[in-house]
């Protein structure tokens, strides 16, 4: 009995000591001494089938094991990977009408089991991705391929009919190293789409043989720099260099993806030298910057993601443009950034910096100005704000969002005297609520799928578009978007999108708040990390071939 009590008192003392020492704790400066990179995937990926993948963590895995026809450079310009060159009209890779794309493949590309990667592998992959029975989540991106939509929309047809539809898809192997793809309409961003993971090559023989189990090692055969050697579900994944890799050999001997979901636990693991790269919990950025040991290890870079408050423009008072503009002026965005530890950049317009189409001059009329906000409200007929209908703000209840919602409530109350009701919802309920258009005002963010403005406007602001939750509808915008989506002349096209973005900002269906910035800790012995604005779950996941460790 007694010894147990003593043990417990000791524990209590340690606990107390820990509370005192938490702020002072540091880390030693020793790595594993080996070429092993340990990063946090923050959770088990849903699956790692390139054709079906859609989440940031799945993508981080696929990037190590597969290489597509095209890829992105660090500045997000296109790069030819399995393709010999990037198709252009000049090199006859793209037909003059913009409807036929011809990819010439490198002849030295191999799978990790040593067999050659050929055009047939791509044909199989693209047709599989469009198979309605596979139900690939990114399939809709490729509906412009001839026969794509028809095949994907035919789940109820017989197998024979499906085969006919599948054979009618405009993707074929001209010869072993030439791939031809035909489109219904000109699609200026088609090459960007061809650099994304859903059209990376996959192996027909392996998938036929193993079915859904093909993604388990050692069946998971790719053509990328690493191979997945171990996958302990919910725990970790291990990658080793692909001995048959045809490109530059990776410098690392091993990559470990851990699956730590709790942000505090991940930081603790980093401090205990179990991780080489980690994020920090939202709200602790300032303390991290003040910490003598950790501050030199901070890595910050911009992400192609914008966060905003979206109005439902069909619900009063938000059907009135003046009210929307007024509220946009009444929010002190810089303060929100400060609350969030100075991480992120004030967003006055929609398309983030680093994206083609970013316009630094746009949105200056929404700079924080309470007097102007009150004037606009008066013009809208709300001299007395108590006459406004009850305003409800909905959000998916996570720690970060809770702070943002309460900040908005405080801003409305302290700057304009408007009391708004907060409506926190569980994430899936919230998404259904938004999709059904039941909300009045809500929080949302948008991240780039590929670096082009056409990924940022029609899907969100086009009349009836899938992700249009402001229910914004502007025929002029729709006409411009329809034109821009098919415009092959690049300067004209970018001008169209610039005009379209300006239109949206004028009408103010959204209050852009900030551009996301990633805030990470990287151990000093990690070298050659290359980050981009389109990284997946783990930082620098597109360039792990260049990473190495110093002792």
């Amino acid at each position, binding site marked *: *009995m*007694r010894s*147990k*009590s003593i043990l*417990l*008192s000791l524990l*209590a003392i*340690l*606990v107390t*000591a*820990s*509370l005192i*020492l*938490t702020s002072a*704790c540091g*880390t*030693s400066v020793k790595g594993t001494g080996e070429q092993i990179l340990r990063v946090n995937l923050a959770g*088990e990926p*849903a*699956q790692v089938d390139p054709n079906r993948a859609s989440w940031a963590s799945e993508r981080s895995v696929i990037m190590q094991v597969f290489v597509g026809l095209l890829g992105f450079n660090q500045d997000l310009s296109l790069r030819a990977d399995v393709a010999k060159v990037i198709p252009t009209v000049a090199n006859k890779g793209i037909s003059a009408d913009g409807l036929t794309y011809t990819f010439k493949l490198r002849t030295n590309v191999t799978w990790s089991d040593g067999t050659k990667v050929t055009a047939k592998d791509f044909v199989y992959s693209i047709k599989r991705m469009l198979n309605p*029975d*596979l*139900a690939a989540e990114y*399939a*809709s991106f490729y*509906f412009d391929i001839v026969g794509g*939509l028809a095949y*994907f*929309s035919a789940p109820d047809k017989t197998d024979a009919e499906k085969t006919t539809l599948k054979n009618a898809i405009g993707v074929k192997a001209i010869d072993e190293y030439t791939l031809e793809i035909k489109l219904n309409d000109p699609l200026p961003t088609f090459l960007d789409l061809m650099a994304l993971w859903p059209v990376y090559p996959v192996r027909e023989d392996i998938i036929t043989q193993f079915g*859904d*189990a093909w993604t*388990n090692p050692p069946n998971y055969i790719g053509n990328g720099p690493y191979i997945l050697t171990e996958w302990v*579900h*919910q*725990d*970790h994944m291990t990658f080793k260099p692909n001995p048959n890799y045809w490109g530059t050999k990776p410098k690392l001997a091993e990559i470990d993806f*851990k*699956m*730590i*979901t*709790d942000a*505090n*636990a991940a930081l*603790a*693991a980093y*401090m*205990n030298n*179990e991780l080489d790269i980690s994020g920090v919990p939202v709200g602790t950025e300032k303390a991290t910057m003040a910490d003598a040991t950790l501050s030199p290890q901070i890595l910050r870079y911009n992400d192609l993601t914008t966060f905003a408050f979206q109005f439902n423009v069909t619900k009063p008072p938000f059907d009135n443009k003046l009210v929307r503009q007024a509220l946009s002026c009444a929010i002190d965005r810089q303060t929100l950034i400060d609350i969030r530890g100075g991480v992120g950049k004030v967003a006055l317009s929609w398309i983030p910096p680093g994206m083609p189409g970013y316009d630094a001059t746009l949105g200056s009329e929404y700079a924080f100005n309470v007097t102007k906000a009150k004037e606009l409200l008066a013009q809208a007929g709300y001299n007395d704000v108590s006459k406004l209908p009850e305003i409800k703000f909905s959000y998916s209840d996570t720690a970060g969002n809770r702070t943002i919602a309460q900040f908005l409530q405080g801003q409305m109350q302290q700057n304009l005297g408007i009391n708004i009701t907060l409506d926190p919802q*569980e*994430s*899936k*309920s919230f*998404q*259904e*609520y938004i*999709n059904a258009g039941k909300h009045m005002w809500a929080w*949302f*963010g948008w991240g780039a799928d590929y670096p082009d403005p056409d990924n940022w406007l029609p899907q969100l602001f086009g009349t009836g578009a*899938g*992700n249009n939750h402001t229910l914004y509808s502007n025929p002029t915008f729709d006409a411009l978007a329809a034109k821009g989506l098919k415009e092959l002349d690049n300067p004209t096209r970018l001008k169209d999108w610039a005009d379209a973005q300006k239109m949206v900002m004028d009408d103010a269906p959204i209050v852009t708040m900030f551009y996301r910035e990633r805030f990470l800790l990287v151990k000093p012995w990690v070298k050659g990390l290359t980050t981009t604005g389109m990284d997946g779950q783990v930082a620098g996941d597109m360039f792990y071939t260049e990473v190495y460790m110093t002792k």
Partner: protein
Amino acid sequence: MTRYAIRRILWLLVVLLVVSFITFSLMHLVPGGPWDREKQLAPQVIEALNRKYGLDKPFFVQYGNFLLGLLHGDLGISYSYQDRGVTQILMQGLPITATLGITAFIIAILIGISLGMAAALKQNSWIDYLSVLFSTIFASIPGFVLAIILMVVFSVILHWLPTGGWGSVSQIIMPAFALAALPAAFIARITRASTLEVMHQDYVRTARSKGLLERVVLIRHILRNSLIPVVTIAGPEFANLVTGSVIVETIFSIPGIGRLFVQGIFARDYGLIMGSVLFYAFVIAIANLVVDILYGMIDPRIRYD
């Protein structure tokens, strides 16, 4: 006794069936489905997914299919981990959650009963106060806070234990203690209360006055009788431990069922939810059955009719 046990086990099947039906209905009533995403999927994609996973069928057909699968030991497909069946996923997490739960349970019972007995036997002594203090502290710190405190002390500061994961003894120590803290405190309090009560019973006084050895009185009369309420609470506490491993598993990155279950709810992964609820219901029912049988062994006055 045997007949009683058999009847209880048959009843267990009925309970599981009712639980599965209620869960299935409630799951479909709760707003939001598995394909409601931040970036909305194209309508054709949602249609294809519903079809692929049988969600386009009427409610009762879906439930019927679930039961049919269950008969074959197949709990269906997980929407969140699409390449593995729910049965496969649960089977992988089961031994982990069970090991963690049982370890924590043993710790909780050992600490709880010894603290509680010590406190009661030495009522109003420093042992008593310390016991109350510890049980209060452990009951007042939410599991996730205790977990992170342990992690900071033993991993970040002392570098003695790894922060998480599964596979070695060093990885089970912190989560098991974090999980055991609250039930240990609760068991200590209940033990103290019931021991105090038993100590004032006539038969204890009689036993003492008969001149029995103090140790004999302690074990045969006090311990045995004071454990009745503890046993009552031990069953539910064990179930709480197994179901309560949710937060601890998340923080210590343990690939058990608790973590899956919560993810399942958030993702509206109906298959995963049904599977884990049935698993939990089974554990709870078994724990209760064991408690009821133990009752009879400890307290012979209780008969099963």
